[in-house]
Structures are given as C-alpha cells and as structure tokens.
C-alpha cells in the first residue's frame, strides 16, 4: 500500500494513504491485520482519508513501516457486523453533528414557507407511522409521537412540531447508539475470552484462546469435548458423534488421516487434529443475538416492564383528552402526549441487563440471558455436583489395601497396569500413585475391556481380573465381599472413594482415592450463604461417609451420597417441587439433565462442552467465589431496575403535572423527558461491581 508519513515520533506514527485507499467496511480488518504484528500495540484506521495511526513497541519503527507497506486491501474481507466501539462512537458523533447542523441551517437559511413545508413533509412520516401502527392494532409510543406531531401541525404550530421531531430524532439516535455500544462492549468482553483450545506445541499442550488459533496448528480434543474446527486427525483414535451434522446417533470411529468437523463431539477417546478451517466468531455473535432478541431469554422483570410501558400509552391519550376537554388548551394537552413512560422503561431495562451481562463477562462469567441473572438473584438453594465442581476432579491415591497374597505395592502395580489404558481421572490417579511410589510395571495382561461408567475387565495370567466400583465388582461380576473385608475397608478408607480389584473371582485388594475440595470451595459456600442462599446441597456418587466428611469440611447444609448420574436431576426437581428456587452447579456430561432441570444452571470452566451448552451460565475461571460475585451482581441489577423504574414513573409523572398546569411548555417537557431518559440510560451502563484486578485480562481487552 502506498502511503505518506504525516507524523512520526517514537512509539507513534501516522500514515496517510489517501481517500479511497480502503473502504469503510475494511477499517476493522485493516486494524486487525496490523494488530497481528507483535510490534503493534494499538492501531486505528480511517477510510475517509486513508489514515492509519499506529502505536508501536520501542525500536519497531521499521517493522511497522514494512507491515503497513505490505498491507494489501484486496486480500482483506469485511469482518461482519461492525462491533468496534470506537467506530460506533465516531459514527454517533458524526450523525449527531449532522442532525444539529441540519436543523440550525434549515432554521437560519430556509424562508418560512419552505421551512414549514419541510416540517410538514417530515411530520407526515410520523403521522403515517402512527396510522400504520394503529391499523395493525397496536397502541404504543409510535402512536403517541404521531399524535403529538399532528396536534402541533393542525394548530399550524410548525416551530413546536419541528422541535418535537428534532427531539425524537435525537432520542432515536441516542437509543441506537446506547444499544450498539452496550452490544459492542459485550462482544469485546466475550470475544477475548470465550473458548479456549489445547494447542499441541513441541509435544506439550498449551491452553490458548480460540482467537489465536491458526490454520495448520494441531490441537488436542478429549472425551466430552466439541471439536471446535474443521480438520484432519493426525494422531489418536476416538469415537466421534456427528449427530449435529449428519443426524446419525451412533458414534463413528476416527483415526489418523480421518476428517473431522467443527461442532461434532468426541464421545470417547482423545485425538490430535490439524486445523483446516476456523469457525470464527459466529458462536459469540449467535449468543449476543440470542441475548438481544430472544423473548425467552429476557428477564421476567424486563418483559413485565415492557408490557406495562405499552399498557400506559392509552392512559396518556386519556390524559390528553381530559386535559383538552377541561382546559380547552391544546398546548397543555400536547404536553401530556410529550411524556411517556415507555421509552425510558423499554430502553433502560435492557441496557441495565446487557451491561450486567458484560460486567459478568469481565469477571470471566458468561451469562446466556437476562432471565438467568434474575433467577440467580431470586434463588434460595444451590446444588453442587461434587466431583469437578467442589473438587478439582484431580483424584489422589491415598492408599492400597490388600486382601490376598499380593502385597499392597503389587495391588497398586497391577491396578496401574490395567488402568493406564483409559484416560479417566481415577485411572490417572492410580497410575500416578504407582509412578510416585516408583512402581514400574510390564504389560502382563491380555486386551482390556472398558465397561462404561462401571470399570475394566481383562485377563491376567489366565485369570479374569476386574477393577471398578462396588456395584460392578460385587453385583455385576458377583465377587463376594465379606463383612470383615467391608468393615476393614470402612475403617481404613477414611472417607475416601474405593476402587475394588478382583482377580480370579476373589477380592484381591482395594485402592482408596480421595478428591480434595478446591481451596476456595469453603469460602465460596460461606459467601453464598451470607448472600442469602439458605440451602447448600451436594450430590455425589461417593459413599455416605466420604460425602459427610466433605460436607462438614465445606459447611454444606445437606448432602446426598451414592447418587447415580442418571438420578441427579430428580433431586433438583424434588427441591423445586418443595418450593425452592434452585441453582445447579455442575461440570460433567452426566450433569446435563440436572443443569437443564434447575431454575438456573452454572457450568464450571473445565466442564464438558455438553454441560457448558446445557448450562445458562458458564464460569470461565476456576474460582468458585465468582458465584458469590454473580449473586451480588444479579441482586444489584434487580435493585437498579426497580430503582430506575421508580424514578421514571416519579419524574415523568411530575412532568405530566407541570404540563397539565401549564407551568412548562411542551418543548421543555419533551426536552426534560428525553434528557432524563438518556441520563438514566447512561447511569444504567455504569459498572455495579468493583473492576476485577486481572492484568492479563485487561491486556487482552486492550489489544482487542
């Protein structure tokens, strides 16, 4: 690209490529292209004069010049809907200046008859819109606007009609601006941090944001995860569920060389995928559109406010009619039409909600709709799944107990030898426990058979060896566990989960596995209780003893032990039937039904993709105390909405009365009404919580 350097100081350089160098739609793409260079700290592009301003790292001037010279706008594509915050600001300023300038130039230059004709022409558009709305059977704010404009026009009061229309245009412009600005802020917050992938780099795995992924990179996808990109399998084997693409419910086996598609799910196994095509930010856009448009996702308070706002309109007309009848003064009557509650309520409520969602995003919490914040504020019970939610799902081997001739080390060695073939967290704990104790093993068993959610079976030295849960070993495989053995296990396991190993139909030993709670779990539960959540319930598949130990440690009010995965949702439904408003916090594939059953559900950062899809709220950080932050935020949001509501009713009612008694003119009334609406919207955009002190996050946002 040809350019001229018009400003050049260390760290800041401005290029000018001339008008028509690139289109307005390519501004964001140019900025993004420049930001990809490590030397560029910040970039701005303006299509009007082809200006490019770059802030760069010390000593990188030549590199920046080369980058700008290498820009080829023919290769750039517009980046979809424009959500750049700065662009929205500058467009708003331009439009506002245009609007004001047009009005004053018209007033100053046009002779009265022509100016009146212009006002009449503009006014007809408002009247026509009002008539159209009436014909469609609605009585809303459009009809109010149309009525006030036509009343002034009929009175031949063109000046007032002009002022009213000017106010309405400014109000519409501000409305669009605030909406666009709030949405852009939300997109920014989500785009930086939503999805992350495990990048395979020199044999190690690094967690990186999706946005940094390049075509040709290799990523690792494990059981329960959605494949985020189209690509080719480079190593590993997995059963892939392609139902989202093909509708085929059965999984397909994929190995090296197979093609996999974005949106399909790894049912079992682990694969490395070389990226062929990226899916972009479409998912984020979809979430934002959903939040903005879907009636189902709107907070109940928002829908109620909007309905109420529309229901007030007929009363405005009634007020207009009565005033006209009693005072015979159309100016006073028009004052009534100038004030409506609906636009302030309709505008400030969604802005408050979207701002709160954005603020949650800044705290690494993704909320999929306003109604979930409302439900979170109203909840009185929280149900936690234990493993992976209250714990890190990183079980640790505590000890091995032998009930046979094998020593405890041998029991551990055999178990590790069998378990190492499966990437299950308990299996990893056993293998790691053996490795930590320096127990090496050789493959002595035949092919292993994995029985989903139960255990593993194989043949060891000609005997059937099984390892798994009590249910699997004792009931499915009919291995006898004597009362003495059971007593010894209970005495020695100390509240740990127990994995049973049986060889040749006899119990050979058990392995005690503990899953320590997250460091902040106790504090998080304490904070939730303080915030008014009375019932804290824990669901776990562990034994009653193990569950009670954890519950006592964390301050949990009620725990249900030995819960089967498929039964979790029943406990949630029971709580709801008892009249509680329930938050469910989970992470696993088997939590999805319980998450769906709750009033509001939360998935942890490392949750399976299925749980994250099912959940209404996702924590992107691993910190459970964010639940308490979310509670505070949701409560503050409700307070803000109700306070706004009271202010709007109070202030506008005063305007109505002042207009009614002729103390203020319709134009003053319109000005104060619009000004108060905008003030309340601006107030609704302000943060409710203290900003999260997270330097990494702020850097990310700055770069975006």
């Amino acid at each position, binding site marked *: 690209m040809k350019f001229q350097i018009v400003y050049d100081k260390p760290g*800041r350089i401005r290029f000018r490529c001339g008008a028509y160098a690139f289109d307005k739609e390519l501004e964001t793409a140019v900025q993004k292209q420049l930001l990809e260079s490590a030397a560029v700290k910040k970039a701005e592009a303006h299509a009007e004069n082809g200006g490019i301003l770059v802030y760069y790292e010390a000593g990188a001037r030549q590199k920046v010049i080369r980058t700008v010279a290498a820009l080829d706008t023919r290769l750039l594509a517009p980046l979809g809907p424009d959500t750049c915050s700065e662009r929205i600001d500058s467009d708003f300023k331009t439009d506002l200046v245009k609007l004001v300038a047009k009005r004053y130039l018209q007033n100053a230059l046009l002779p009265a008859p022509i100016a009146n004709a212009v006002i009449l022409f503009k006014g007809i558009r408002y009247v026509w819109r009002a008539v159209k709305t009436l014909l469609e059977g609605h009585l809303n704010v459009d009809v109010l606007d149309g009525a006030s404009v036509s009343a002034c026009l009929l009175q031949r009061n063109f000046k007032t009609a002009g002022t009213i229309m000017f106010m309405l245009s400014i109000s519409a412009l501000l409305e669009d601006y605030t909406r666009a600005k709030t949405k852009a802020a939300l997109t920014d917050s989500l785009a930086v941090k939503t999805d992350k992938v495990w990048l395979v780099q020199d044999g190690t795995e690094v967690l990186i944001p999706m946005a940094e992924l390049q075509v040709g990179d290799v990523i690792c996808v494990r059981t329960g995860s959605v494949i985020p990109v189209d690509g080719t399998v480079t190593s590993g084997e997995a059963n892939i569920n392609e139902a989202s693409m093909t509708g085929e419910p059965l999984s397909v086996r994929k190995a090296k060389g197979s093609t996999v598609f974005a949106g399909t799910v790894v049912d079992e196994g682990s694969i490395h995928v070389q990226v062929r095509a990226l899916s972009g930010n479409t998912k984020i856009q979809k979430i934002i559109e959903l939040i903005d448009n879907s009636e189902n996702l709107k907070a109940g308070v928002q829908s109620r406010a909007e309905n109420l706002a529309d229901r007030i309109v007929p009363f405005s007309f009634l007020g207009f009619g009565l005033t006209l009848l009693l005072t015979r003064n159309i100016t006073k009557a028009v004052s009534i039409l100038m004030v409506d509650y609906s636009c302030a309520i309709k505008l400030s409520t969604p802005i408050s909600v979207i701002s709160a969602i954005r603020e949650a995003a800044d705290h690494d919490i993704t909320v999929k709709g306003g109604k979930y914040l409302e439900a979170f504020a109203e909840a009185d019970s929280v149900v936690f799944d234990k493993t992976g939610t209250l714990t890190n799902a990183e079980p640790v081997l505590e000890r091995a107990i032998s009930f046979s001739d094998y020593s405890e080390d041998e029991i551990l060695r055999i178990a590790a030898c069998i378990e190492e073939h499966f990437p299950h967290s308990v299996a990893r704990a056993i293998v790691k426990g053996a490795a930590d104790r320096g127990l090496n093993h050789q493959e002595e068993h035949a092919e292993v058979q994995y029985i989903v959610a139960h255990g593993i079976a194989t043949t060891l030295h000609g005997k059937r060896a099984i390892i798994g849960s009590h249910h699997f070993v004792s009931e499915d495989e009919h291995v006898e566990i004597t009362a003495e053995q059971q007593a010894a296990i209970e005495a020695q396991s100390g509240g740990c989960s127990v994995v049973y190993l049986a060889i040749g139909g006899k119990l050979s030993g058990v392995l005690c596995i503990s899953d320590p709670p997250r460091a902040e779990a106790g504090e998080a539960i304490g904070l939730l209780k303080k915030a008014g959540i009375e019932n804290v319930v824990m669901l776990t598949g562990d034994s009653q003893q193990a569950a009670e130990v954890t519950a006592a440690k964390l301050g949990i009010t009620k725990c249900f032990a030995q819960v089967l995965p498929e039964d979790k949702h029943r406990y949630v439904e029971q709580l709801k039937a008892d009249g509680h408003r329930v938050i469910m916090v989970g992470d696993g594939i088997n939590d999805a039904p319980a998450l769906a059953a709750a009033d509001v559900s939360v998935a942890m950062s490392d949750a399976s993709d299925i749980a994250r899809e099912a959940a209404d709220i996702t924590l992107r950080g691993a910190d459970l105390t964010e639940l308490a932050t979310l509670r505070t935020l949701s409560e503050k949001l409700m307070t803000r909405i109700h306070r706004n509501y009271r202010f709007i009713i109070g202030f506008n009612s005063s305007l109505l009365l002042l207009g009614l008694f002729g103390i203020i003119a319709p134009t003053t009334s319109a000005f104060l009404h619009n000004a108060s609406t905008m003030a309340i919207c601006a107030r609704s955009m302000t943060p409710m919580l203290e900003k999260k002190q997270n330097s990494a996050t702020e850097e990310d946002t700055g770069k975006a």
Partner: protein
Amino acid sequence: MLKCFKNEKLWCVVGGAVAMVIGKKIVTAKKTRQLAVSGLAKGMKLQNDAKAAFQNMKDEAQDICCDAKEQAGINDTDACEEADA
C-alpha cells in the same frame, strides 16, 4: 369562439400541458441526465473531499495535542492514546 380564447383558465390549462410536455422532454433528455449525473458525482466527490479534509484536521489536531502533552512532560504513549480516544 374567440371568447373562449380570452378565457384565462383555458390558457392556464394549455400552458400547463405545454409545460408538462416540455418538462418531460427536458427531464428525459440525455443531456439533462448527463448534467444531473455529473452534478451528483461532483456533489458526492465534494462530500468525500470534505470528509477527508475534516478527518485530516482531526488527525492533525490529535497530533498537536499529543506533542503538547509531550512538551509539558506529561506525555507518554498512554497519555496520547487517551487523547486520541
């Protein structure tokens, strides 16, 4: 017969019809179209030039502001970024 020629309204009608025919000819004439297109193009170009000139002014004002901050000793890149924002 002659009387009707003295009727003012008749002449208005005739005049209006003639004006319409001539007006249509003018509006649909190739030359008029060319004039209108070139006029519009000039207007659009003027608008673009005005936008470019306005943006140049804005850029230069930002640069001056940034330099002033630097001279006052309060400038660093961050301060300039704030000024530009």
